[in-house]
């Protein structure tokens, strides 16, 4: 059995990404230190080109490639586009702040990670899924520990590795139980065969798998690496992990639960609802006292994971999964933007402390304004992207009878206002320690601008995104 030509066409974007990663490595070899930005520029250009075949796939009928092991459907394509945009933005933002001998490798690693994330979102086979998760994990560990001279970055890399290895091991144990019950590694076959499987064994496997997925999406109680890694890793990497890696984790989780496990009638809704409630509450409460912007964003990203989990828990309604996708897209732009401002301030002021943002509205007015937009969006206030996402997942919760979960979500939104507005307060109300303007590098400005535009446009005119998300979920159920 050999793969056919149409199989190769189906993984066009993936092949392109792999080639691009190699190309960036090559370019890195042949450029002098100090001119490594060229590698970054090539990476961004190549990533943007990936969008062309990827968006062409939106019009395709759902199909699988390589003997049913890899899905090319609206859902996978949605995550391809999201991942590629997020990676391109992160590289843009990193280009000015990251000056080192290994800059080219950094871009190549990011491109490879993007490839792994895309594979994760499309995997329809346990083995491919396990491989792609490991692929992503390995490159991410390196990225987190990228600043070799910085002990905090080393610590982040090591911790991430230890935690990730343990979580993956537990998850693969869960996979093996599923395989043992079903006798197949293909998700669609598993869906058919699990109908007669014993329920307790299935619970066990779901719980074990949640450890791995929970690690990727930083769900309580598998969230503990998040603040340590975000704080220690280079800020662009933290941005990348909090957005792209999390999105792919959700993609794999949703595909696994909806396609393979759900037909077996295992009731995991209550379990996930509780996890969602605990995750957002704990993340919020721990974000309240943070003074370091990266730790604050880390805890806030945990709390957002809880919100997005509402969409998973409410998957039976019409809005659950589309809501999750809309939320993820809006959150991607907003969270990236917030991290980019942190990149800017961190690079210029050598500080990640929120009190040092005082007077930013006068020292870097555009960035401060955008940061305010991002903070309001993260809180979930209209007219911003995350508001639309929250609106949809909370609506989905109410629709599927999880009213209490929606109430918890709303209370958490209110709590989160406190620490998000704290940043705005520092930027606009607190007196500045110095009045010197902060230079805003051009590439970072572009990335920030795109993030800001994305946040506002989705908030003001969400209809196209809503249609896209609805389309993507229709195709998921095959």
């Amino acid at each position: 059995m050999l793969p056919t030509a149409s199989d190769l066409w189906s993984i066009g974007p993936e092949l392109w990404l792999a080639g691009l990663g190699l190309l960036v490595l090559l370019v890195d070899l042949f450029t002098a230190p100090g001119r490594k930005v060229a590698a970054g520029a090539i990476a961004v250009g190549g990533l943007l080109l990936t969008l062309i075949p990827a968006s062409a796939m939106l019009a395709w009928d759902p199909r699988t490639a390589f003997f049913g092991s890899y899905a090319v459907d609206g859902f996978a394509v949605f995550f391809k586009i999201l991942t590629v945009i997020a990676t391109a933005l992160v590289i843009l933002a990193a280009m000015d702040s990251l000056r080192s001998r290994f800059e080219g490798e950094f871009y190549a690693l990011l491109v490879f990670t993007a490839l792994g994330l895309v594979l994760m979102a499309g995997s329809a086979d346990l083995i491919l899924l396990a491989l792609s998760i490991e692929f992503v994990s390995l490159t991410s560990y390196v990225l987190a520990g990228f600043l070799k001279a910085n002990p905090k970055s080393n610590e982040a890399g090591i911790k991430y590795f230890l935690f990730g290895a343990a979580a993956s091991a537990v998850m693969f144990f869960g996979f093996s139980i599923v395989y043992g019950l079903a006798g197949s590694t293909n998700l669609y076959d598993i869906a058919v065969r699990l109908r007669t499987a014993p329920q307790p064994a299935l619970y066990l496997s779901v719980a074990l798998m949640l450890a791995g997925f929970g690690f990727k999406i930083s769900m309580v109680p598998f969230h503990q690496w998040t603040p340590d890694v975000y704080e220690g890793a280079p800020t662009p990497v933290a941005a990348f992990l909090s957005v792209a890696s999390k999105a792919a984790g959700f993609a794999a989780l949703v595909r696994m639960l909806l396609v393979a496990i759900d037909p077996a009638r295992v009731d995991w809704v209550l379990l996930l609802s509780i996890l969602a409630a605990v995750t957002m509450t704990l993340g919020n409460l721990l974000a309240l006292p943070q003074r370091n912007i990266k730790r604050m964003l880390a805890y806030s990203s945990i709390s957002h994971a809880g919100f997005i989990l509402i969409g998973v828990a409410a998957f039976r309604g019409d809005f659950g999964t589309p809501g999750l996708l809309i939320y993820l897209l809006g959150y991607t732009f907003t969270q990236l933007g917030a991290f980019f401002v942190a990149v800017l301030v961190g690079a210029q002021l050598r500080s990640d402390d929120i009190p040092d943002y005082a007077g930013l509205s006068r020292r870097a007015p555009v960035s401060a304004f955008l940061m305010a937009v991002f903070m309001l969006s993260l809180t979930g206030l209209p007219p911003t992207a995350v508001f639309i996402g929250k609106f949809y997942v909370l609506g989905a919760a109410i629709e599927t009878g999880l009213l209490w979960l929606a109430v918890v979500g709303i209370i958490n939104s209110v709590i989160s206002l406190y620490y998000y507005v704290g940043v705005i307060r520092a930027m606009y109300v607190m007196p500045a320690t110095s009045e010197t303007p902060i230079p805003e590098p051009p590439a970072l400005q572009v990335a920030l601008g795109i993030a800001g535009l994305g946040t506002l446009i989705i908030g003001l005119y969400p209809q196209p995104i809503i249609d896209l998300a609805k389309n993507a979920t229709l195709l998921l159920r095959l």
Partner: protein
Amino acid sequence: MLAVAWIIPVLPFLAFWLIIFFGRRLPGEGAYVAIGAMGIDALLSIAILAQAVGGATYQANMVWAVLGDRALEIGYQIDPLTAVMLIVVTVVGSLIFIYSIGYMHGDPRYPRFFAYMSLFAASMLTLVLANNLLLLYVGWEGVGLCSYLLIGFWFERPSAARAAIKAFVTTRIGDTFMFIGILLIFFTVGTLQFDQIFEAVEAGHLAGVTLTLAALLLFGGAVGKSAQVPLHVWLPDAMEGPTPVSALIHAATMVAAGVYLVARTYLLFFGSPDHGALTVVAWIGGITALMAATIGIVQDDIKRVMAYSTISQLGYMMMGLGVLGFTAGVFHLMTHAFFKALLFLAAGSVIHAMHTNDMKEMGGLGRVMPWTYGTMLVGALALSGVPPFAGFWSKDEILLEAFHHNPPLFWVGLVGAFITAFYVFRMIFLTFSGPLRSHHAHPHESPAVMTVPLVALAVFSGLIGFVGAPWWGNPFHHFVEFEAAESVPFDLNLALLSTAVALAGIFTAAVVYYWKWLSSASLRRAARPLYALLVHKYYWDELYAFAVVTPTLWIARRLRVFDLYVIDGAVNAVGIVFVWLARLYRLFDLYVVDGLVNLIGWVTGKVGGVLRYVQTGSPQNYLLVIAFGVIVLVIGGILR
């Protein structure tokens, strides 16, 4: 070209943000950015007008949000009415922006002025381009906000701050009616798109009393925005803003938005039974025209003369629309925009030279400020309705329509025309002829950046009326028309009559203020009660103070007393009772509750300690948590 018309409001909107953020760092401290945006808009508008004259129309929609099964669509359209309004806003706007460079020179908030003006332009252009009531309302409120910001631009002056609030609150009253009207239409017809509303009217889904009510509610918004009686009181006070603001917002464009609204939704008014809504529009307009003109006679502040003149001319436009003269009303809107902007800017030039608004201090300025004098004279002739200047053609048409459809209003309009000519030439003579009455002023001609826009506007004011001239078939009539209401053909006798009336007004003004055959003081004495009535502006402000402000304050004070004695008393009584209860409770508290609280505190502290302990930063513990977490999940799942 029509398909990219959406870019017209976007450009000044971008300019607004740029100037707000970068201000003084931009070329010309932001002024060039604002002027550039407006200039490009003006070119686009001219191109659009050219296409619209060729018969092209355009409409684009997109769904903004879906409410249940009702879609809220937003979009824009190009038709003759929109094309004319675009020209008025962008051309007059560009000239006023240029003029502002000179007028606002040295102001401490110079960039902010251009930012607000750009925001205003963006809102006004949105309003004009909208093809639905929703987007129109967005623009409507946007221009209201900018008007507020710009009237109060010099907010250090208490009078300016007060005027800004007065304008905002007064127009809000009209806007509330308008909003109710919009809701009424939405819930009756299920859409806010103009063409769909009109279809509903033609199909009879929106008819009878509901239609009249909807039209009149919308007209409520127009009354507020266009300063018609009885909501006209804000406009004279709005003159506290910088003069370019008065010219652009409170003369040429924003205040005309009310007239535009009536024209845009004309079918609603036209379709109401017996044209009932139109009759109301006509009479409100006629009364406003006459009343404001008479007040204009006794004003000594040069800008207030202009303000009352604006109210009066807006009244003429409303009257024109009301007496089935759709084209006449819109035509007058256009010509008025040019000559009134000219008059305001010329007045601004005078104020710039004299540092005062008081005409009693002026006199003889014609010799030192020839450009200002010449251009203002053109404006005054246009306003008076002397042929061939612009105002003649449009005002004559309004009178003609009134003569045929509502004779009593024709006489009102004719008397108004006489008074108009009188007060404007009173202003001209007081300002430019005779000796200079102030002893410490050193007037000088304004710089070229101010006089060049004046000359450009003067050319427009002189010539623009010819687009409605009869001897080449009145092209404006074939461009902007309302098919159901055929316009009345030109009548030479009436034209001669209205010209004679205008000349008579000018002559009378000359008798009193130029040749001084009659002294104005003796006139004042002879007509003392009338004079008192006019000086007090028909007691409108006093009426509102008596009927609205005083009762509101009275009620507020009574409520405060009620609050102080009844509610606070009740609260205090409850308080006293509870103090006693509390003393009892304290014993319970001390021994039972505190014990519990301390227990909870102790537990929370311990939990917090444990939680902190969990986030140790030590990977060994993290891995342990994974293990425990999985075990809890498994047990929880299975035991459930």
